[in-house]
């Protein structure tokens, strides 16, 4: 009877480097297609909200400050995001992309997970508006 054993494999493993990675001591680059945190480029955005409509996790809100002047702020909830990239697919103007570098998404509280994108001036205006109405809910997103 032929006998195959795993001994050879075990002996080879003894002299080989460990297969496990020394993360976080050594941080290897992720593959270029990795789907990490979402990014939004307001430049070409028309505010059509197609990205919001199909998001399965309710992770994006498009807040319109001034529709005619195309002033929008995108509020992204990284803690809800399922990293499915459907929003990236939906945007016809290629405003959305997923970072292959920002994937260490862990924090001790929820705050860092709410990310505002838009021009600094617009975000500032929005946050001020929110602060002024602190007793009320945040402005509702465009449906």
């Amino acid at each position, binding site marked *: 009877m032929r*006998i195959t054993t795993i001994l050879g*494999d075990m002996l080879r493993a003894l002299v080989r480097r460990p297969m496990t990675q020394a993360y976080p001591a050594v941080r290897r680059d992720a593959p270029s297609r990795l789907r990490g945190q979402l990014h939004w480029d307001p430049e070409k955005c028309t505010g059509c909200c197609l990205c919001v409509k199909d998001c*399965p996790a309710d992770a994006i809100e498009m807040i319109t400050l001034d529709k005619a002047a195309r002033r929008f702020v995108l509020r992204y909830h990284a803690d809800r995001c399922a*990293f499915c990239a459907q929003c990236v697919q939906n945007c016809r103007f290629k405003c959305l992309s997923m970072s292959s570098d920002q994937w260490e998404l862990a924090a001790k509280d929820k705050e860092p997970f709410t990310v505002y994108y838009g021009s600094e001036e617009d975000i500032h205006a929005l946050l001020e508006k929110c602060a002024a109405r602190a007793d009320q809910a945040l402005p509702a997103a465009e449906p």
Partner: protein
Amino acid sequence: MTETSRLLEQAAQITTPWGKSFTAPEANRLDVVIDANDLPAAAAALNAACWGYLAAITGLDRGADDGRIEALYHFCAGAAVAALRVTTPRAEARLPSICAAYPSASIFERELSEMLGVTFVGTPDVTPLFLPEDWSPDAYPLRKDIDLSQPNTVPVRPPPTNGENGKHFIIPIGPQHPALKEPGHFEFSVAGETVIGATVRLGYAHRGIEKAVEQRNWVQDLYLLERICGICSHIHATAYCLGVEKLAEVTVPPRAETIRTLFAELERLHSHMLWLGVAAHEAGFDTLFMAAWRDRETVMDLLEQISGNRVHYSVNVLGGVKFDLEPQHIDALLNGAAFIEERARYYFDLVNHDPLFNRRTRGVGVMTAEQAETIGVVGPTARGSGIVRDVRVEAPYLAYTRCPVEPIVETDGDLAARFSVRIRELLESCRLIRVLLETLPEGALQTRMPRRIRAGEAISRVEAPRGELFYFVKSGGGEMPERIHARTPTLCNLASALILSIGRPLADIPMILVGVDPCFSCNDRTATIHTADGSAEDETWTWERLRRYGIEATR
């Protein structure tokens, strides 16, 4: 006449005595409307004629206006799907059980009765399967009029037992048990060493996805359904996409079809390797467990490189795929396939020629082809018992129509056969990956999908790593589905483990369960033995005496 239309014609003939109407919603389907009282007779006739196997029972709530609940009994033979459609009044929903002809229907009937409130007359087990103990017995989640703003809970009911009150010893396993990787609750009644009853209680990870999809749009549902399973995420999404695309009459570009198929095969590779590791671990062969999982990383890295994620690759969109293959991906895939192939050959030798390991697998958990047919098992579990049941072969879809699959079948029906089937499937998948890459068509990745899907019903069947995955998709013509029913392969195969365990020594149970893939090992050994007829007094055994008994009993 094609084989499929011959089968459908035959099904129509068999059910003629009871059929009130016959329709063909798709080329490979036949819907037979019958009277609910004729159900057992019609099912028995199909069984007697050996026409296919019971794939699923789908329940539909037709709403308050219609006032009826409809149940669809799907039988599959090759590419043909015949459904017996029965209705019952919503106010007093009752259907006769078909467990006499199809023992595997028990699990489906339990599911339907708790989800839609149908009472099954004559079904052997009426305990809840999925819903929690404190769920109200009058709230049926899949009825359209359920009030979801209420918690629908009641004070906790007593935990389930399988009815043998105090007469036999019941060994409970789970839901939290060191040997279970996922929560599930099994109860084995034993008479001495022999198992005389087995029940399963699932649902500890039940998330109500089938209800939730009715409240989201078609695109959002894709990602929800993908998350039914972490191992076969892609195949769930694929089954759903195929169903929806069929309803919308959208044809996916050939390049996208090939990429979907490629991912399905990569998924099979890593799923089978995961299983190999877990099964080896349960048999006490931890070195093989480590080696298999180490090598599995090759596949995971490939998936991550191409799609950007290891687990939920999310390759599918409705109408195509998201990610294209670049030349460097093709090279990496070819190298990966060559490596896995070499390893699979080595594993094959190992599990077939390691004398110690063979004592744990040869002749254990034997299921004959006849048993496999009656129980309605699918996937590698069926193929280990000599049944050619592989959707990729019987009803090819996607690129399998262009690149035929060689079905892998073993005839021994024991655990060793299931090992051989899965390892040989690794080789077959590697071959397929090469063929798919050689014949990768050029062209677009997506076609446009309408937001509203034409009203209708579609069935899609695909071969998941664990066997046939069955999707029933119903659209009312809107932006959201009306009903989606997913029948996962494990639900079919689990029934086999329960049915096969009756009459077996307790020590065989872990092996029988591991063979179907929801693997778990070692039962709690108990030191209290009740005699088989329950008459003699109970005795408490010392560990040493139990050990000696064990050695003598298995000599």
